[in-house]
């Protein structure tokens, strides 16, 4: 399949997915629709996160910050502005913060960047809390204007489809190539003409725009929001986990993982929320250790590789236990000693 055929295939799958998601509310139960809504939210978050963080390998933990900014925009502005305008402004505010944050910290590498984005997220949360307490005198905000459930669902669906569509197109553009170059060897890409600073800020801003839009849309699901709920770092963590387990460089990995995890989350949430989170953690560890490309990179060859690896490991263990390894070592030592006398 050449690249044009890939593109058509990807767009068709996206179309099918959106059609199915569109039709869902008309025949499924409220519980399923609510699950689908969470799923779509994470599809949007993880696809946009993977777009930037996957190729450039800058792990951003700032998703919760942008989500919260979007949520607060809705809490403050919905009513004065229309639904679509509020979402757009929410995304816009998140982008502004991302540009400022990015300009300050994007020159640092991997772990520093991850830690810093986490620190900044907490900083924003505490700043908002402090501001609300001292200046406006509130702890949280009540949302009074609530659009219909259908509208919310449709909005999040549109955002999710946009995120995936953007993923599909960006990787075929110069921008996507620049992102990959930054992830492969940033300095080399610079010497070949890539303005890495600008590109990184742009990519970071894209993750912010989607997270802000999703936050703005989902805020109305809670009638009361406060900083700890909407700036909850867990939102960012879960996004990262889902994208990494799904396959950070792939297109469909994050989507697949988002679906699986939304189903798991909703079914386990009421009775065994901790088991869900434990399995998330365990799965992440296993993936990083044995499947760095994520679930989407699973192929027959991977299974075969695991099989031969474990067989080799078992053989080695047998050798060691039967003392053969020790005997081989001694033989080698004796031979070395003899060669010294030559």
């Amino acid at each position, binding site marked *: 399949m050449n690249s044009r055929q890939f593109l058509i295939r990807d767009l068709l799958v996206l179309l099918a997915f959106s059609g199915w998601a569109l039709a869902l509310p008309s025949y499924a139960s409220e519980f399923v629709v609510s699950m689908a809504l969470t799923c779509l939210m994470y599809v949007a978050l993880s696809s946009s996160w993977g777009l930037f963080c996957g190729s450039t*390998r800058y*792990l951003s933990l700032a998703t919760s910050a942008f989500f919260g900014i979007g949520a607060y925009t809705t809490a403050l502005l919905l009513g004065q502005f229309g639904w679509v305008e509020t979402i757009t402004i929410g995304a816009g505010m998140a982008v502004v913060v991302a540009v400022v944050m990015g300009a*300050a*910290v994007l020159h*640092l*590498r*991997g*772990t*520093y960047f*991850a*830690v*810093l984005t986490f*620190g*900044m997220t*907490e*900083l924003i949360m*505490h*700043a908002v*809390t*402090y501001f609300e*307490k001292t200046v406006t005198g509130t702890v949280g905000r009540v949302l009074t204007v609530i659009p219909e459930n259908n509208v919310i669902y449709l909005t999040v669906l549109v955002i999710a489809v946009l995120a995936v569509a953007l993923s599909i197109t960006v990787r075929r553009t110069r921008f996507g190539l620049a992102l990959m170059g930054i992830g492969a060897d940033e300095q080399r890409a610079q010497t070949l003409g890539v303005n890495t600073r600008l590109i990184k800020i742009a990519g970071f801003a894209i993750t912010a725009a989607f997270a802000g839009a999703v936050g703005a849309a989902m805020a109305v699901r809670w009638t009361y929001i406060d900083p700890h709920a909407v700036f909850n770092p867990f939102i960012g*963590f879960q996004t*990262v*986990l889902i994208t*990494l387990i799904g396959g950070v460089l792939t297109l469909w990995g994050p989507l697949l993982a988002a679906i699986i995890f939304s189903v798991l989350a909703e079914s386990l949430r009421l009775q*065994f*929320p*901790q*088991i869900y*989170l*434990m399995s*998330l*953690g*365990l*799965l*992440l*560890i296993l993936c*990083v*250790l044995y499947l*760095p490309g994520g679930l989407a990179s699973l192929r027959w060859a991977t299974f075969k590789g695991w099989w031969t690896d474990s067989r080799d490991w078992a053989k080695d263990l047998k050798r060691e236990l039967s003392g053969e390894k020790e005997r081989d070592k001694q033989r080698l030592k004796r031979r070395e000693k003899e060669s010294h006398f030559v």
Partner: protein
Amino acid sequence: MSITAWLELIASGLITGGIYALVALGLNLQYGLMRILNIAHGEFLMVGAYLTWLVQTQFGLSPLLMVPVAFVVLMVLGVAVHFLCFRRLTATSPNLDVFEARGLMVAFGLMFLVQNFVSWQWGGDLRGYDYLTEPVKFGEAQFAANKLLVFGLALLFSGALIVLLRMTLLGKGVRALMQSAIGAQLMGIDTKRLHPMMFGIGLGLSGVAGALLSMAYTITPYMGQPYTVTALIVITLGGFGSMGGALIGGLFLGVIEALGMHFTNPSLKALLSYVVFIAVLLLRPEGLFTRKGRNA
């Protein structure tokens, strides 16, 4: 404010600072030596606390006894964790940046795993027990006996680690490895044995901190994360890889926090500590207490 009140305030800051220093030292050991940023570190502190609490309520054993036991248990756990989770990364990562990123993600997963395991087994409620709660007097100032004990032991363990690193052959090997991994290996220092052991010691310290904390404060499955964050801030202030810096930074941060809590409200204090953290990372990444030119 009277002198006594000042003393009490600073002392309470030092006490929390001692714990911060202990946790930070462990984290520093893991990052400075092995470049593993273990953000699950606080969770193991929590495990130490729960272990102590369990033993105290089930068997009535004194928590003082549990302090060395917690160290040993967590050290063994640390060696196991390193062997299971991190060793493979050293073999399969193409370069240091990828290794660090993967280590961070594995630690992430561990955080989820450990935190929720404890929450699942023992519930999310606050737990605690009473131990040595009678106050002790120094002149006019008054302190709870258990908190004094916590401070003393925290300093003891921190000091022991620093002495270990400076005086013993093992410690010198560790410091050599931190300065130049390849050079040290050429000298015959065996990283295969050293890394798991040092990782274990790091976790052991965290467990001790947890055991100590359980003596004087209530515990919950979620108590670990703030300590990880604080430890991160401390090692940033003190300089990644600098042991003395972690000790001083921990005590310093404890005092600053106590003063901050007293004179302003808690949200501002949290806000300020993050501002300081980010400022240091951006402007002086080698730390406030290190000499410039030291290898981070």
